[in-house]
């Protein structure tokens, strides 16, 4: 494992991740997430659907950035971004994804300057987050399978932290819950990195929550 992976997955990376709850805020508002058990179900569901898709795209973007001959064949930035679009039916989620991708790319161009990131910024100024993450991982020297891990972690960590704040849960208990999901994180990252076809697992409830959230009057998180 590379030290760069830790920097990349760290919530202190100033790339705006803290502003997003990944649907958790709306799930709390509707009562669907109300305690540790329901949070666990939410996070596991998120990880195995949106998380798997993000991890797959991230690994593919990382491989494409390195022009790796490992299948699937390298794709252009525009092609990868179009694949992310086709897997994100909810416009609110596409917007949240692109916002996070744009911020990550902006920060990373200063932290890990690389021709690959300039190329991405030119081709897709506001890339989907996994596309940006894969490119940034390559620029930081992180291999595709570890990049997939960062994406899987990103899919649950932000939502978990948001739930702590929204429900006033014990942060230690929530971290215990995340530790319990560690084997799932490993499995999702491994599956995503090994996939020859980009995963497309969808989560209808997350789509509904995202759209509802985009229209909510009072909200703490952007998504």
């Amino acid at each position, binding site marked *: 494992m590379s030290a760069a992976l830790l920097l990349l997955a760290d919530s202190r990376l100033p790339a705006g991740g803290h502003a997003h709850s990944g649907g958790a805020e709306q799930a709390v508002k509707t009562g669907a997430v109300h305690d540790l058990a329901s949070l666990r*179900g939410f996070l596991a569901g998120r990880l195995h659907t949106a998380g798997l898709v993000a991890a797959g795209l991230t690994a593919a973007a990382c491989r494409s950035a390195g022009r790796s001959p490992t299948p699937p064949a390298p794709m252009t930035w525009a092609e990868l971004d179009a694949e992310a679009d086709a897997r994100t039916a909810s416009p609110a989620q596409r917007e949240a994804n692109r916002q996070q991708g744009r911020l990550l790319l902006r920060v990373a161009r200063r932290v890990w300057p690389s021709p690959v990131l300039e190329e991405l910024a030119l081709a897709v100024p506001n890339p989907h987050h996994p596309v940006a993450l894969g490119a940034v991982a390559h620029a930081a020297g992180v291999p595709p399978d570890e990049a997939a891990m960062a994406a899987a972690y990103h899919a649950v960590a932000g939502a978990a932290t948001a739930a702590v704040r929204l429900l006033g849960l014990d942060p230690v208990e929530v971290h215990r819950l995340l530790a319990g999901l560690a084997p799932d994180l490993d499995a999702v990252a491994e599956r995503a990195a090994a996939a020859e076809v980009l995963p497309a*697992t969808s989560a209808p409830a997350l789509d*509904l929550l995202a759209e*509802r959230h985009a229209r909510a009057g009072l909200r703490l998180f952007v998504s």
Partner: protein
Amino acid sequence: MSLPLPPRRYPAPVALSHRTPGAGEVAGRRRMRASAAVSTALSGGRTILPLLRSDPPLTLRQTGPHTVHLVSTAAGPLGGDHLSLDLDVAPGTRLEIGSIASTLVLPGDGESLSVITARVGEGAVLSFAPEPTVLAAGCAHRMVVRLTLAEGARARWREEIIFGRYGEAPGRCVAGFDAMVEGRPLLRQELTVGDPSLDGSSAIYGSARCVGTTLLAAPPHPATPKSGSPGLTAGQAGASAAEGPIGANAPGQGATGVRGGGVVAEGVAVLPLAGPGVLVSALAADAVELRRRLGLGEAQIAW
């Protein structure tokens, strides 16, 4: 559900004998391998159906000039069965596919598979709206849909999955949906139902017992949502009409026939896709409510 069939003005379904028997006899029953097909052609400016190939249990019956209904002539699919349906909609023609009854997927020997491949030619229109698929306890099913649209083609594609018969836990199902428009990906989704470790996750289906989507691909022109439609409260209609920057992040890519979109009512969202199309997505406790919710969403879109 019964459907009034018109008098037999159209050719009766023909069960052809090219059907290949399955790999083996399983518990006194053959695994079925069936491959049915429909294709259209243009004749004197009208749609005709030069190919209507039934293959039991996939029996096709023409019920209108460009309408075909699927009539199941055997139970299932059961585990081990492989069914495929090919739809070829020639440029400038029109095809509507429905079904007489819902499909009950039953357990058997191994995984059952259904593959639907649909090609919609230039300027052609396809409507695919069969009755729901019900996942009986213990089933292991895989559904694959591949939809490709040429320039100027339109498609309406409805899919409803019911998690088990009344009071029953569903079997397992993976439903993949892949839509391409003019060589570019429009929608790629995969739903997994019946995974015990994710059952009840509020991120996936929550407490719903059915999931449904209607894809309206490449609507011809932007339309105004019918505000004040039944089931919309004033506040929700207002939210829909007062659509802000959401979905406007990719200029030039949002040629959808709906302005705004979003959650139009409880359990249903109208999702303008990044490419030319809109997805109506719904969750519900039962099949009747699911259909009602999809209908509410579909009514928002001029297709």
